[in-house]
């Protein structure tokens, strides 16, 4: 029983992180149709900005640094969409072509972002030492618990934003039917840019939290991109609540497999992913 309890607890904690890593990508694909392969690179940027602020003379608390990484990454994402992806949208004859091109362009971004980071920070491992102790009888690492708390807060805030605000309504409308949304007076270009920016900002926040949990290096991005892709497909492409559920499911799967054979974790991710694509490509929450 203790084993099952521990698997569920660590699975939930990990699932929360996975969910946060993936929500941004779900938003970018769900609304903007950009399968952003560079998603993980913005997580890396978030991690390194946090690390840099933490190590600098102001010794900024990683949780507080979210207030810097989130707006910073939002602006990067907004600019990227307003320039690069908008241009691709204008030059692509169909949505399929745009999806293909934007995926490739984001692959180019992956190179650019990762190599700029490598020039600045090199290729060694870093770690932000923060809340490195365990609590309660189940020996839950405090930093993971805090991270899960932040994930839940962000999830709730984001949900309220989508459900209650004018911008949230515009985003939901655009994800359902961009043309009609445009006819109803929604400024599609600005909504898409804000969405992409929000997606990148989610990655930045995830990066800030991840830097307190794991060692970070400039090549860390791709592994998170892959996890995000799996989770997003698991939950249903474009479904934000699906990404949350998918994250938890993958987190628990990961902990079960890790318990039996740690080296099979990655294979299990891909296997879940491939089986899911074959059996139910729409995902858990897909329509």
């Amino acid at each position: 029983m203790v084993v099952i309890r521990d698997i569920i607890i660590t699975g939930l904690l990990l699932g929360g992180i996975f969910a946060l890593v993936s929500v941004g990508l779900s938003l970018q694909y769900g609304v903007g149709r950009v399968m952003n392969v560079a998603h993980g690179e913005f997580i890396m940027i978030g991690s390194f900005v946090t690390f840099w602020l933490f190590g600098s003379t102001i010794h900024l608390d990683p949780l507080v640094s979210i207030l810097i990484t989130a707006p910073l990454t939002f602006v990067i994402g907004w600019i990227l969409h307003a320039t690069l992806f908008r241009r691709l949208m204008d030059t692509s004859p169909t949505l399929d072509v745009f999806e293909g091109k934007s995926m490739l362009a984001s692959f180019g971004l992956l190179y650019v972002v990762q190599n700029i980071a490598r020039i600045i920070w090199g290729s060694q491992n870093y770690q932000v030492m923060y809340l490195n102790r365990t609590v309660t009888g189940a020996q839950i690492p405090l930093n993971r618990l805090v991270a899960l708390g932040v994930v839940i807060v962000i999830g709730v805030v984001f949900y309220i934003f989508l459900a209650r605000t004018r911008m949230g309504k515009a985003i939901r409308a655009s994800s359902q039917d961009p043309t009609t949304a445009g006819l109803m007076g929604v400024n599609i270009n600005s909504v898409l840019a804000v969405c992409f920016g929000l997606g990148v900002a989610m990655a930045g926040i995830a990066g800030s939290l991840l830097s307190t949990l794991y060692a970070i290096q400039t090549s860390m991005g791709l592994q998170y991109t892959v996890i995000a892709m799996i989770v997003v497909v698991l939950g249903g492409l474009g479904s934000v609540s699906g990404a949350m559920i998918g994250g938890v499911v993958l987190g628990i799967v990961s902990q079960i497999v890790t318990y039996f054979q740690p080296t099979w974790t990655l294979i299990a991710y891909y296997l879940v992913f491939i089986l899911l694509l074959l059996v139910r490509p729409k995902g858990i929450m897909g329509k």
Partner: protein
Amino acid sequence: MNIKRLTPARWAASGLLLVVFIVLSLLPTLTQGYLVTLLTDILRYVVLTVGWMIFSGPTNYMSLATAAFYGVGFYIAAVFNGPLPFVAVIIIAGAVSFVMALVVGALTLRLRGVYFAIFTFALTLMVTSVVLEVERVVTGTRGRFVVTESTQTAYYAMLIVTIVTLVMAVLIRRSRYGLALQSIGQYEEAAAHSGINVVLTKVMVFAASAFVMGMAGAIIATRRTYIDPGIAFSLNTSFWPVLMALFGGMGNLVGPVIGAAVFTYLGELLLTRFPDLYMLIFGVVLILAIAFMPRGIVGLAEQVWGKIRGGRGAPA
């Protein structure tokens, strides 16, 4: 079908092609070393890019499994080269990739658009980690050593595979399968209703494109002494052919060939001049190419040519 009359211009083009191939086949007797290696590398990307285009060009199914089929070639070469003759190894590598693509193709029939791209992407990653795990458990090592072949042998092998690929691409384009593929790309249901065996066409052409990728992998593997899953199944191998095809232009076969040649040469140039900035510049070039040359370098050339000739014959 794309049957055109044999105009003088087409005679000249065929003649030019013949001259190019004669020069390419005589080249190793004239020069040695770097140029031959560089050409082998360029030909490899020509094979991968044209191979990718055979299936993904007309159908709009973006396959990112190139690295999987290519990497399988690496491992076939690592296991069999030495005990078996080089030619047999290359053919086995192609055959194994072919069979693998048949299975993958049959599994992914229901997937469209971005799902197909993600699936093939995940497949490559999964093959990488499975091979890594198998090696860890069975051999207890990370990588393998490969019995090498000489620069010239590899070059000629690659040249032959390139010709095979190009001939195959032309034949498929000209045949009814090429037309079938195009109609699948435009409207799959309509294609099925007009009597095309959609399943068979897609799977067979996908497998054919994997065949040449596997062969290219086996040849390149013999130019390296050591391989591991990270090298064999590098994601770059999946993305670069797509970029090269886009960079060159997907309208005809000349585009991908030019794209592969220019990109590979550019890559080498950057790698030697700016080793630190290499990937960064590469990324920037790539983004700019996608953003500003929607019809590739060939499309751009046609546009410029159209302007020079005074605006007649605007590009279609």
